[in-house]
């Protein structure tokens, strides 16, 4: 009875929405022809259909079940079933109908939550049914579920007792945006980078076997993450070890993030995606693959159990020694529960099994389904329309400035090419691709390959700009050392998201790039202090043709400095920094955009009557020796500041100072860098505060060194600053 009452109220809200919003949108939301009739009736403005539509809805059934319309109105959704679930244990006794309703309620909850906090939306919507099925069939936390990348784990978090904290997700001291072992025992393995789930799952399965336990291990990986080499390494090993492991391949036909091109999602990159698509066309069914064919030719007996007789390219997995099941409709709870139960109950001697499910990213929420970028990563938005409330800023992001200046360089030099690893939107290269379609390469999630691919291009005389997030560059590090730096090939590395990145947290923060780049003998390492400098550095990198070079820039918007005309930078003199402000007694030498904090600190110090010189090092390698000497000889205090870990800029300066006897004099040198721990997710401002790199901290460090102490550090910390940091 209650359900029909609920339906009534929903329909009224639906109908009123219909009057305002575009009816096409709602029309496309439905996934059944029954709803289609109802919507069609609602179209009719002439008839007095309000009451009839309501009546129709109450009476009509789809396959014998009542189905209520999803509520994306912006009010807290009514979720009777979800309200009773605080742990996966509570899902065991739900009937199939209730599970399906639960999936619908989960969707409403996700849209509601993410609309208020921002975060990753559509990936979670695509796996709602899968999450419900998994928790119903398996027993977390004994059974381990490992989510690859982890941005689709929102329903998992909701179902495992963190629903009440979902409004804090990705904020300081709130839930992490990705699975985290510290956060909950239900998060079996931390994630953030892709393609790690099968490897981790295999490790957990082998560990379980060695300890004599008998829980299940399930790895959920997407078809995009499958393009990374690591996934193959894991599959290869899994087939070889033959231990029991369940792999769920979540195939939504999308390899690169949907922001890959300006006009919308790019067709999947790579030959594997084609193979996976072929799996879906069942005309390939029962086609023995090569090995079987040859065996048959030689007269061998193949019994019906032979592994290799299965659909077309399912052979790929079967040949690797992994049982293949699929394709399966990833949005059908009944099918999923059935298959998972069957696989769970299989006798011991099974080995690894891969279940190939087909889902649609953003399923069930029309604005996400039709958006070009599928609303993959969103800021706060209005759930009724899907319109995001993007904060207007006076300046563009560093990413955009980078893309614009690269386009300007590429216009004049047709040898410039750009490479990225499935991050067209994130790196800004979707803009480059629009201008120079043939000169932009998306290699899929394959950083190692991207680096060596760039090396190959450089060897042929082209000028490759390899644009990879600082954090993801870690994946391709050996290639940087061995294939690029050792051979002194002029590959240019543009490392976006350097330093602390905010809501994504430590999995995405670029804390280490200066450290691991500047220790390489042949690498030129630069960092701009603002967007103008960034453009000049793009030009500088383009001009460096005899050795590799790199530059790093953070997540965020520019400060509003004057950019060169037509976005075309001018190459800087290599190994030369600049002095931004003259002072005496105290010198603050910054590397990268942290220089802005140094300037703010100098302003603070001025209030206290301390005059400070602020310098922008520009280059970490080669260091501007003259500048450092000058600063050391003319000042009593030298502070070096960088937004990177130990072993980076400050370390290089310290070695320089020591080797040149500059520490033997009267100067007091102090380094400031990221502390020796991971900074948790939160707003960038909070993170900088936590790291102790805000302008107040810099000024406080200076004050603590001045003899006599001009001011109590506590008083200093509570001074108001003009700019945010």
């Amino acid at each position: 009875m209650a359900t029909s009452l609920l339906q009534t109220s929903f329909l009224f809200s639906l109908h009123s929405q219909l009057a305002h919003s575009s009816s096409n949108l709602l029309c496309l939301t439905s996934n059944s022809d029954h709803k289609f009739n109802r919507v069609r009736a609602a179209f009719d403005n002439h008839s007095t259909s309000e009451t009839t539509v309501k009546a129709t809805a109450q009476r009509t059934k789809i396959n014998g079940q009542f189905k209520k319309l999803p509520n994306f109105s912006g009010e807290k959704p009514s979720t009777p079933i979800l309200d009773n679930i605080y742990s996966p244990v509570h899902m065991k006794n739900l009937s199939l109908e209730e599970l399906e309703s639960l999936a619908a309620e989960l969707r409403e909850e996700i849209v509601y939550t993410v609309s208020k906090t921002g975060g990753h939306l559509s990936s979670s919507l695509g796996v709602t049914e899968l999450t419900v099925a998994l928790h119903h069939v398996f027993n977390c936390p004994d059974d381990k579920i490992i989510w690859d990348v982890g941005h689709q784990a929102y329903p998992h978090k909701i179902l495992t007792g963190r629903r009440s904290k979902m409004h804090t997700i990705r904020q300081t001291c709130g839930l992490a945006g990705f699975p985290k072992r510290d956060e909950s025992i239900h998060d079996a393995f931390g994630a953030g980078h892709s393609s790690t789930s099968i490897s981790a799952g295999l490790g957990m399965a082998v560990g379980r076997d060695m300890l004599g336990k008998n829980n299940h291990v399930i790895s959920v990986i997407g078809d995009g993450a499958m393009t990374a080499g690591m996934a193959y390494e894991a599959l290869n090993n899994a087939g070889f070890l033959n231990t029991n492991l369940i792999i769920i391949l979540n195939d939504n036909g999308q390899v690169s993030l949907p922001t890959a091109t300006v006009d919308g999602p790019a067709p999947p990159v790579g030959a594997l995606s084609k193979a996976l698509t072929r799996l879906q066309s069942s005309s390939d069914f029962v086609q023995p693959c090569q090995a079987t064919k040859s065996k048959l030719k030689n007269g061998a007996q193949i019994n019906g159990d032979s592994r290799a007789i299965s659909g077309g390219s399912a052979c790929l997995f079967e040949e690797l020694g992994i049982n293949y099941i699929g394709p399966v409709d990833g949005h059908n709870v009944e099918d999923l529960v059935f298959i998972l139960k069957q696989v769970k109950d299989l006798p011991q001697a099974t080995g690894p099994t891969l279940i190939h499910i087909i889902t649609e990213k953003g399923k069930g929420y029309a604005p996400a389904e039709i958006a070009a970028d599928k609303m993959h990563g969103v800021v706060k938005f209005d759930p009724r329309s899907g319109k995001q409330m993007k904060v207007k800023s006076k300046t563009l992001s560093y990413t955009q400035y980078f893309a614009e200046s690269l386009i300007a360089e590429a216009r004049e030099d047709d040898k410039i090419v750009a490479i990225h690893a499935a991050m067209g939107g994130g790196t800004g290269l979707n803009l480059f691709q629009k201008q120079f379609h043939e000169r932009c390469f998306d290699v899929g999630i394959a950083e190692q390959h991207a680096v060596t691919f760039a090396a190959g291009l450089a060897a042929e005389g082209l000028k490759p700009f390899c644009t990879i997030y600082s954090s993801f560059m870690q994946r391709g590090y050996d290639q940087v050392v061995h294939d690029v730096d050792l051979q002194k090939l002029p590959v240019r590395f543009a490392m976006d998201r350097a330093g602390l990145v905010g809501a994504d947290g430590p999995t995405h923060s670029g804390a280490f790039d200066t450290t691991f780049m500047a220790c390489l003998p042949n690498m030129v390492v630069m960092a701009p202090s603002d967007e103008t400098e960034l453009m000049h550095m793009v030009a500088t990198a383009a001009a460096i043709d005899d050795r590799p070079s790199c530059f790093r820039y953070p997540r965020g918007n520019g400060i509003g400095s004057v950019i060169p005309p037509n976005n075309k930078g001018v190459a800087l003199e290599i190994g030369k920094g600049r002095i931004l402000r003259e002072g005496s007694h105290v010198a603050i030498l910054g590397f990268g955009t942290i220089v802005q904090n140094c300037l703010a600190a100098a302003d603070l110090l001025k209030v206290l009557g301390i005059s400070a010189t602020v310098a922008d090092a520009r280059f970490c390698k080669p260091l501007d020796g003259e500048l450092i000497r000058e600063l050391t000889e003319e000042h009593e205090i030298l502070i070096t500041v960088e937004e990177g870990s130990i072993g980076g800029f400050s370390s290089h300066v310290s070695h320089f100072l020591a080797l040149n006897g500059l520490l033997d004099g009267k100067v007091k040198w102090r380094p400031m860098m990221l502390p020796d721990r991971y900074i948790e997710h939160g707003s960038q401002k909070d993170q900088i505060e936590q790291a102790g790199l805000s302008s107040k901290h810099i000024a406080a460090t200076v004050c603590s060194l001045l003899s006599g102490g001009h001011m109590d550090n506590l008083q200093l910390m509570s001074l108001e600053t003009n700019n945010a940091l």
Partner: protein
Amino acid sequence: MSHGIGSAGRKSCFHNCITSTFSTTNSMLQPCSYVAFNSHLPKLSFPLKTQSGSFQNRPRASVVNSLYIGTESLYDLLGISDSGTLTEIKQSYKQLVRKYHPDVSPPERIEEHTKRFIQVQEAYETLSDPISRALYDKQLALSSRKEELEEWRKQWQSQLTRLKRRSMRQDSRANMSWGARMRRRSNQN
């Protein structure tokens, strides 16, 4: 006469086709408006607007019930592709109408042609209105999707059966993989 032909010897399931006007003159036919409803749904309180209803003023709202007439989709019926433009639809409609109109068809073929004629008529109505065409396209995609899903279901069901059979057999001594060895060991304990 129209109803008689409408209900005789049908292969498609236009059960309760109510036509308000059906002129058999050569002039431009008034598109008939009707409500078709799904026979699967039991008691529907769907508003049945006939002559008195305002549906008459909304001929565009007509929607075919079954997606395929025989084995042909509405597009096949009109002989155009799925992405045919409105002009193409109109052209082929006019051609087919001239061919199948009962008045111009040879007497031995009248019944067959008239049936065809009605079908073409309805196809044209659905596809010429952008809204009903969009709805029809969506339904068509859904139904071919349903078939595809059925195929998949059969496939994975047989895969599961095979897998079960395969796993029934204990790890033979010949299987020297690490996993098999561990399983044998734990079975012994």
